[in-house]
């Protein structure tokens, strides 16, 4: 520091200013989110009965868990610079149909009826294949939006075909109830799964070479290629992770409903109608960079809880699904606006 040249010192002063500025900008964003969070929380307490109850709290984190897990999967894709899968709910659709078919008919084999392990394995296999195929095409350099739009159509069609567009139900009690409706130490199993997924994913991203490559390729794909990290394998792996997360959520949801239908995740799903939009919103509201290379599982998790909280408040205030979908839409627009205003400049994206 002492023996640096004059220009060097000037450089440093400038970059300290830059640094403080960028911290400030990031804090601004954070404080805006926090302020809204607190306002809504207070509003919730004072305007709504039953808001500050443990039961309601559990509902919030339970809701958050379902799309939170899918959002964790999607975070890998988004961080690696491959944007989104538009086939999230369709992957979940074919997977939940597959699980329900397995539980109710054993895929045609008498001995497998109601066998959780086999139904789960087949379902995860379907998720894996869906992820690998879509990732392969994206890895070849095709646009992820187009590829997954195609994948979405195919998978939804197959799911509807397979189930004759009917509800496939299986009888309670069944082997999957622990996952669907069970709880452990007072928290629903699905919430525990969410926590487990989140921790594993965060470790994977922050502590492994794979995770580092996700960030590097996402930050600059050309530089990633130049340093020996190709997007081809990265696209396949991240798409597979994401699709497997979808498959897991589908299994949990089917287990909870004890039935499955191709459009469970399109219209009927819990809070806000369209699962794909909800999951993408979760990733974005948390503040992960839409261009990749910047973000974390923590952000996604915060996004999930945030959305679940607002949604929950809308439910308690008696709003039906229409206005709630509008709410989710507004949250996406809001988060993108805030990021465009505050975050982009500091991250030296050009």
């Amino acid at each position: 520091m002492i023996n640096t040249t004059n220009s060097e010192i000037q450089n440093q002063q400038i970059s300290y200013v830059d640094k403080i500025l960028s911290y400030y900008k990031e804090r601004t964003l954070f404080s805006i989110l926090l302020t809204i969070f607190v306002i809504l929380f207070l509003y919730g307490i004072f305007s709504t009965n039953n808001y500050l109850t443990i039961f309601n709290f559990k509902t919030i984190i339970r809701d958050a868990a379902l799309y939170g897990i899918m959002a964790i999967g999607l975070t890998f894709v988004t961080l690696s610079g491959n944007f989104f899968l538009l086939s999230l709910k369709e992957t979940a659709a074919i997977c939940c149909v597959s699980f329900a078919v397995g539980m109710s008919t054993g895929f045609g084999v008498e001995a497998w009826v109601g066998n959780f392990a086999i139904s789960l394995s087949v379902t995860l296999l379907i998720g894996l294949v869906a992820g690998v195929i879509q990732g392969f095409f994206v890895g070849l350099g095709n646009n992820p939006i187009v590829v997954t739009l195609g994948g979405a159509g195919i998978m939804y069609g197959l799911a509807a075909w397979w189930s004759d567009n009917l509800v496939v139900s299986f009888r309670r009690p069944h082997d999957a109830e622990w996952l669907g409706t069970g709880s452990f130490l007072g928290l629903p199993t699905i919430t525990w799964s969410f926590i487990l997924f989140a921790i594993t994913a965060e470790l994977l991203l922050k502590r492994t070479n794979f995770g580092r490559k996700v960030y590097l390729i996402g930050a600059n794909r050309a530089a990633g290629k130049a340093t020996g990290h190709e997007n081809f394998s990265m696209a396949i792996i991240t798409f597979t992770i994401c699709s497997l997360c979808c498959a897991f959520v589908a299994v949990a949801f089917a287990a909870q409903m004890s039935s499955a239908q191709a459009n469970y995740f399109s219209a009927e799903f819990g809070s806000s109608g369209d699962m794909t939009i909800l999951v993408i919103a979760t990733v974005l509201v948390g503040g992960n960079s839409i261009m990749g290379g910047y973000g974390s599982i923590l952000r996604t998790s915060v996004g999930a809880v945030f959305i679940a909280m607002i949604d929950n408040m809308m439910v308690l205030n008696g709003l039906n699904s229409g206005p709630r979908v509008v709410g989710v839409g507004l949250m996406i627009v809001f988060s993108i606006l805030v990021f465009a205003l505050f975050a982009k400049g500091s991250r030296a994206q050009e």
Partner: protein
Amino acid sequence: MVDPILKISNVSKNFGAIQALKKANFEINKGEIMGLVGENGAGKSTLVKIISGFDNAYDGDYFLNNKRVNFDNPVKAELEGIAIAQQELSLIPNMSVAENIFLAGSKVKKFATIKKLAEEAKPYLTLVGLNDIDPSIRANLLSVGEQHLVEVARLLTHEAKILILDEPTAALGEAESRRILDMVRKIAATGKSIIYISHRLDEIFKITDRITVLRDGETQAISNTKDLNVNKLAEVMLGRELKNMFPPKSSQIFEDTHLEINNLWPDGLIEPVNFKIKKGEILGLSGQLGSGAGEVLASIAGSLKNRSGRLKMNDKEFMPKNPQEAIKNQIAYCSSDRKKDGLFLGRPIFENLTSPALKFISKFGINMGYNESQFSKSLALDFLIDVKRVKDEAGLLSGGNQQKVALGKWMSISPEILLVNEPTRGVDVGAKSEIYQRMRELANKGTTIVFASTDIQEVTYLPDRVITFYQGLMIGEFSEKNIETTNIIKQITDPFNETNL
């Protein structure tokens, strides 16, 4: 003596700590062709930006027709008759030539058929020497040189009085360049003033009336072209004392061939090249933009497609299909555009430094961070990057420090062969010197270094051997004693005596 129609006096401009212009002066008379020359980073582009209104945050005075002006956007400059043709083409490829010419919408009716447009475009095309083409064909059917001419025709529709041509011939062959030069003369004869920027000194001498030389942001001289010759101009451009920036050359005699390049034919070259690289030497590939020198390097590193070629290294024959394979074979390639594929600007410096060497800092794919922090710190120390800043985003660094990171990251794999395309593009003088020093140290330790550069000083004073390229052809080779600026300039600008300078 008439007053100049445009005059810049004592203009200074800072970018952070770097002073791009230091009290620079510039002027141009009506109907004059003024050459603007200087090395990369001398401040030419900054000056042009100020003149054409892209940049108005400067100190100093800018007079147009004896009136002090300050354009806060390019449109205002355009209204005053200042038009610029950028080095990169800005035509819309699948629109017709005529539509491209009237793109800005001036001088034509709101609704017009292509036929009508074509008719109206004719006179402008004739003016730039394109009387033989049909204005209704798509712009991308024209050759690159013709597209440049169309671009100039577009500027003429704006009633430009002062035209700025930024390296219009950089990507062109001799015949096409000649058309551009003819056009420039023709337009100047109609009373328009032209600022002509080029690295090709032969062209500058052929067409300009006067020449302004910039060096390190200062105007060195505004002199009549008649009073100068190539050597004198080069001397003014380069400045002698800069010789001291370079480390002494190696006294070693290089014998062992380290890398043999056989029949390598990268995209962008006219014929395959063959050459050998000796262990521990610094080999310079010299050539102007579009000469193919950079393409050869990129191709060796597997980041550019090639039609044929084998590499032979340590008795092993191979040809990397992608950078990954090159890295496996201990070949590192630092590209010329660090923002595009050299750095992860949004990621911390230490991640940039270790990016090619993830397997060295991890065990079974798991990286707990301790090894990495040690490793990246030692790399940063090595390349004189401030160790305290390794956690900052790389994008926050100055150009020179960014380049050090882009280059330094390759030390993480201790490469046998280091290929560097434009080692010091957009880098300030201090960092330049440090980078040269470091490259020489590496070579002395046995790393073989090949670099491609358009910077003539760098090519003269840094390497132990130079190979020259001209428009996709390998021209000649200079070893140690014969490396001289004038010889090299001759070979990279006019090796076949086409211009009879």
